[in-house]
């Protein structure tokens, strides 16, 4: 074998959970929507959730971006997941337990559930402990309904539970259970994925007034069904995605004026630009380069926020521009409610002290996710700080692999993955179809029309999927022989004269000559194109499925039905 390294296409390489994007886009091209969902599920248990709220690093990495726009990968994923939900899923069967070692997972957020999913598939008895009454973590409690409906989250979690994952809700880590108590109960490995649940404090006077509620608490109490009196004017402090979510939710709850106060300018906002755009469409006002100095109350309730104007420093060594307050620029905004959204921190009080790092996060190996305590792994927001669902899923998968290797006594090291693209010359691909504009009409239609509409949407999806350049070679969707011809070259050694022509012509370098001078095909690399078969002067190379005989018989079959 000469230097065969497994490489991922850019979309798959960019995804923290390494979802096989090329495979499911390829299946959508063929109209195999159900199979596409199955392929997504191999790497990611949340196709519908990620189809809605993922920040899609795959689309940023897409090679197609060099020609026109990236393939709408996230929308395709959402479509196939929704089609599956509408049509009804094939009932999930519990995976038989292959191993005895019990695994405890603390926190039923995306990281914990992804780890539970992977371990359950491997055949471990898994128990998930969760403090809140419902599973899903931030996905369930902190993403507002207009972005991610609760029934979607429930549907996806039901799939994981269907695999035979045990769940205990209302159990608090550090109080009801600890690392030691779990080990005493016979759990051989523990994965801590508690996330970053606490809001960071502003540390300014007036933060404890009535009407100041931190964004995560605000969203969580709404998800728990509490009614909040939000008043007419709401100020959200911060520039992240949580700030945007809080502002848009406040707007939907009936606030007349919602403003976002951010201490840097628009370019520095950590929120995704499309989120900012959507918030502006909702009528949220943005004030840049202002930072709150104090919150002014009246009778124990918020009346106004006093702010200072800021200016940006020159970029420092790290390239970041720090905000510097301009003195004597105090001004006030009259508000009924203040929602600080300046980040979340990990609740370290419940953790064993030896695994807490310097920066208030859990200290764990970035690749294997091991902590200092043997058998205890940690991942997700609790290790990286507030991040995204897909990164948490990636961490959960890595942890599951590490736990599996730890329990089997293997070396806990990761395979190396190289990112690459196979497309070399962009200018020549410009002729390919541009993005298909989705139909604008809304489905306020009769049944007959809805069916036609859905058919159109599905066709649009196939058009969109066809824009994929297929940067990798075979995407290994493993959909089966009936969908894809899996073929390989077979050398008849008695006929081969060792002329070397096939070795030279093979586009993949799959053929080498062995000691006796006979051509040998490396089955792993061979793609079954048959170029060597056509080249071979002695007809020593044949293919099983697309053999010369089969093509010739297909030829005569085609010509039997003569129209004379």
């Amino acid at each position, binding site marked *: 074998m000469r230097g065969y390294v497994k490489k991922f296409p850019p979309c798959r390489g960019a995804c923290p959970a390494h979802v096989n994007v090329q495979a499911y886009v390829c299946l959508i091209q063929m109209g195999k929507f159900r199979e596409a969902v199955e392929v997504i599920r191999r790497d990611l248990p949340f196709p519908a959730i990620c189809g809605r709220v993922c920040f899609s690093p795959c689309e940023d990495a897409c090679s197609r971006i060099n020609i026109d726009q990236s393939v709408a990968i996230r929308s395709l994923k959402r479509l196939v997941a929704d089609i599956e939900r509408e049509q009804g899923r094939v009932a999930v069967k519990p995976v038989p337990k292959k191993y005895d070692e019990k695994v405890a997972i603390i926190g039923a957020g995306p990281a914990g559930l992804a780890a539970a999913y992977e371990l359950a598939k491997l055949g471990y008895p898994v128990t998930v402990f969760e403090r809140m009454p419902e599973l899903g973590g931030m996905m369930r409690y902190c993403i507002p309904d207009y972005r991610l409906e609760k029934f979607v989250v429930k549907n996806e979690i039901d799939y994981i539970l269907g695999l035979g994952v045990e769940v205990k809700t209302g159990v608090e880590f550090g109080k009801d259970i600890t690392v030691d108590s779990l080990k005493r109960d016979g759990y051989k490995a523990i994965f801590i994925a508690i996330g970053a649940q606490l809001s960071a404090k502003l540390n300014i006077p007036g933060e404890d007034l009535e009407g100041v509620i931190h964004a995560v608490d605000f969203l969580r109490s709404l998800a728990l069904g509490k009614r909040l009196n939000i008043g007419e004017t709401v100020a959200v402090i911060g520039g992240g995605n949580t700030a945007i979510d809080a502002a848009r939710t406040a707007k939907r709850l009936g606030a007349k004026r919602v403003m976002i106060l951010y201490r840097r300018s628009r370019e520095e906002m950590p929120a995704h630009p499309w989120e900012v755009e959507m918030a502006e469409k909702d009528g949220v006002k943005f004030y840049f380069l202002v930072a709150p100095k104090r919150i002014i109350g009246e009778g124990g309730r918020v009346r106004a926020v006093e702010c200072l104007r800021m200016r940006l420093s020159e970029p420092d060594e790290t390239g970041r521009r720090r905000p510097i307050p301009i003195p004597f620029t105090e001004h006030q905004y009259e508000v009924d409610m203040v929602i600080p959204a300046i980040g979340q921190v990990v609740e370290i009080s419940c953790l064993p002290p030896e695994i807490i790092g310097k920066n208030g996060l859990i200290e764990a190996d970035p690749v294997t996710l091991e902590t200092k305590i043997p058998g205890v792994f940690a991942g997700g927001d609790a290790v990286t700080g507030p991040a995204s669902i897909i990164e948490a899923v990636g961490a959960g998968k890595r942890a599951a692999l590490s736990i599996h290797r730890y329990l089997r006594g293997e070396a806990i090291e990761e395979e190396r993955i190289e990112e690459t693209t196979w497309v070399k010359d962009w200018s020549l691909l410009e002729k390919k179809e541009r993005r298909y504009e989705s139909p604008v009409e809304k489905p306020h239609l009769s049944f007959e029309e809805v069916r036609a509409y859905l058919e159109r949407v599905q066709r649009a999806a196939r058009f969109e999927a066809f824009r994929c350049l297929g940067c990798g070679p075979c995407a290994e969707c493993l959909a089966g022989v009936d969908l894809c011809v899996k073929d390989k070259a077979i050398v008849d050694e008695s006929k081969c004269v060792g002329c070397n022509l096939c070795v030279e012509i093979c586009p993949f370098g799959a053929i080498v000559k062995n000691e006796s001078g006979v051509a040998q095909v490396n089955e792993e690399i061979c793609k079954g194109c048959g170029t060597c078969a*056509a080249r071979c002067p002695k007809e020593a190379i044949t293919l099983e499925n697309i053999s010369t005989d089969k093509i010739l018989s297909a030829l005569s079959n085609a010509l039997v039905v003569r129209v004379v």
Partner: protein
Amino acid sequence: MSEEDFEPVIVGFLCNWCSYAGADLAGVSRIQYPPNIRVIRVMCSGRVDPVFILEAFKSGADGVLVAGCHLPSDCHYLAGNFKALRRVILLKRVLKEFGIEPERLWLEWISASEGDKFAKVVSEMVKEIKKLGPNPLKRLGGK
């Protein structure tokens, strides 16, 4: 047999990655094209041995279409389409020696998203071959 009655039989060798998917897309999009083509899927246009094309003409095909991925860099096997191009150019010269009009052999590049192009190529080809008339080998009393 008058020109109007003559329905040519065309054998199409379509590569699995681009042209076959393009033909599939033409079907999915319900684009109309003449039913004269008989499609044979091959993994790559580079897989099309000149023998296949000669065999098709020998068995009475009135036209042969070889379709692959666009030049130069769309080929799934990197250079299969160049090999097809090379072979078809050579074969056209050979066909003349056999008394078969080289215009009966077409080589087209059709990508997976070009369902409309596939339909256009087939209808054009049928039109052209109707003008040429039936395969001369058939007229000589061949198969």
